[in-house]
């Protein structure tokens, strides 16, 4: 071994500028995104946080006044309604989308004729915003104009479907329309997941004599865990951001019985000139998101870390 002798006699080319550039390039390319994330996500959150401690009304004001806005926020009955509704809507919306989406995916996965056609039907609502479909939905759900009227005309005089005009129930119509829009997408996710399940596992289970139901419940569905996770993230983001949906369908009504935090924030910050209060509600919303999503993401990435 002539290591020591060699070391001194070696030629040592130095890094050229191009090499420095090459090694820095990935970071340079990611730079703008980082900057954008810092300013437009975190900067704006801080900005909003700041405003939540001010008396901002019509336009932003920057003199701090303490926790006044938070106190009045939690004294506001409407805020509690909005929070409760987010719980009802978010929970039901996610569960319904997951269950129906999975059901549809499983049904479609049974060698169905016209699968492509049916899939397109289930998926198309995702393409349309409630700006477009809101009116149609309002009509359908309206007891005098829509479904209730139709069924009654068909001879079922006692049929009632008037949730949209019933204060305690209107939030459920929001779930119906929201699920209508999003289940197709969840179905697509699950279908993609089902197609990716290893055939060998299923064959092994069949050889073991497992019934089809059994194969689904104890083998296929558990193996879709990552899909559930993706769907959960996407659905919860839709639920938290739901705004157009409520505005188009119920306008938050009857009264403010179908308000969500997003509509609450918008109403107070922009229509009632209480930007400080709106900012406070936004911060609470974001804190809720962080409290729910971050542990979820953390545990999931930990579990599947490569």
């Amino acid at each position, binding site marked *: 071994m002539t290591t020591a002798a060699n070391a001194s006699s070696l030629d040592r080319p130095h890094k050229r500028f191009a090499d420095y550039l090459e090694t820095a390039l990935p970071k340079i390319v990611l730079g703008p995104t980082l900057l954008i994330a810092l300013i437009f996500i975190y900067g704006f959150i801080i900005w909003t946080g700041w405003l939540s401690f001010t008396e901002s009304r019509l336009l932003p004001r920057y003199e701090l006044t303490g926790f006044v806005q938070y106190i009045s926020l939690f004294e506001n009955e409407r805020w509690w309604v909005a929070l409760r509704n987010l719980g009802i809507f978010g929970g039901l919306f996610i569960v319904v989308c997951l269950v129906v989406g999975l059901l549809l995916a499983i049904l479609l996965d049974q060698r169905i004729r016209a699968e492509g056609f049916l899939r397109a039907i289930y998926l198309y609502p995702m393409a349309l915003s409630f700006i477009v479909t809101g009116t149609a939905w309002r009509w359908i759900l309206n007891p005098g104009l829509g479904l209730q009227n139709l069924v009654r005309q068909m001879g079922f005089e006692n049929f009632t479907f008037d949730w949209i005009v019933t204060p305690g129930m209107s939030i459920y119509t929001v779930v119906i329309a929201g699920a209508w829009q999003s289940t197709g997408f969840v179905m697509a996710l699950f279908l993609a997941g089902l197609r990716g399940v290893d055939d060998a596992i299923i064959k092994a289970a069949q050889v073991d004599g497992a019934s089809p139901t059994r194969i689904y419940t104890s083998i296929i569905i558990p193996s879709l865990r990552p899909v559930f996770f993706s769907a959960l993230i996407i659905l919860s983001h839709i639920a938290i951001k739901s705004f157009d949906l409520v505005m188009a369908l*119920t306008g938050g009504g*009857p009264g403010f019985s179908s308000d969500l935090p997003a509509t609450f924030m918008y109403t107070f910050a922009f229509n009632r000139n209480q930007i400080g209060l709106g900012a406070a509600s936004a911060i609470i919303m974001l804190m809720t998101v962080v409290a729910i999503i971050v542990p979820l993401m953390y545990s999931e990435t930990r579990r599947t870390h490569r």
Partner: protein
Amino acid sequence: MKLTWKLAASACVVAAALSGCERQEEAAAGGEVEVLHWWTSGGEAASVAELKKMLEEKGDTWKDFAVAGGGGETAMTVLKSRVVSGNPPTAAQVKGPGIQEWAREGVLANIDSVAQAGNWDGLLPGVVSSVMKYEGNYVAVPVNVHRVNWMWANPAVFEKAGASIPTTWAEFQTAADKIQKAGLIAVAHGGQPWQDSTLFESIALGVGGASWYQKAFVELDQVALNSSTMIEAFDTLRMVQKYIDKDAANRDWNLATAMVINGDAAMQFMGDWAKGEFTAAGKVPGTDYVCMPAPGTAGSFTFNIDSFIMFEQKDESAITAQAHLAEAIMDPKFQEIFNLNKGSIPVRLGMDLAKFDQCAKDSSAEFSSSSQEKKLVPSWAHEMAMPPANKGAMFDVVTAFMNTPGMSSKDAAAGMASAGKI
């Protein structure tokens, strides 16, 4: 380089002939006005188009900036963003105390010179001009006066039910019972917060009278807000609610009006913009429908004035164009055309109302008489009386009352009082 610039400029001129181009041609003709409004439909849009025509005659360019929805709620969001971004429009449709709030932010222009030249102080009633001024200077231009406390009734329905059109809330109850017995809907209503409050406002005025109304809803007097009068008003609202059909939730007001037009419902409590619907359906006032003050409010007048606030402009040509806009809005010709379309009455005093219908004439007459008798009050449901925060909170109370059968009038009155404190 130069050539392409010229090409671009000439392309712009051509485009301008078709629609209205941006910056380049400002220097050539007058200035550009960008007006934020939410008058996007039928008659309203036609009225705005008239304004546009008048400005174009003066050589200015009209850049339309229409944002409809929710009685201007979306438009207000847009306006705030525009101002925050340092790029406000020339003028925006803002009314009532909102004018003062914007003025306080120091973003509005002083248009006293136009006002003096046009003798606005002489032409506008005091209640109106005081709203348009901030610290003694004009910052906004009024367009029209709406009367909110109207009741629109279909006489044929009353006849069918054997009832007579009510003038007090007691009479209302008798009539409504008869109509309901006849299998018809007594009150056409849309369960949207602003409609709930519009209805309540008329009831409150009828129950409590103009001076109590002034104390409660303009001065936000705690005693008046939480008084037995307020409780009585809510009791009356509960009574009226019995005669509203179940499907009213989130119904647009014009659909409710259609129910009266079609004879499905007997009456609607709505401002005079509802008249446009009757007119469009080919109905004649006095025979097909009647306009009357809401029960108990004869002689009183809740006004709702649409106005444009004028934003500070940097550009000389833009300032000139803005002055042209202010002049045009107050021009008798525009006032006539606009208000004929909109169902309201001109804000200028002493105009010839020959072309207006009976309802408008009545409205105009009561506008001056109520002013003298101190029965002219601003409509709080239409943002004329109090800041949006209080108004919003009161909307919440009224709407909660309408949608919560078990809520007592006493609680509602207490709620109104705390809404007045925000």
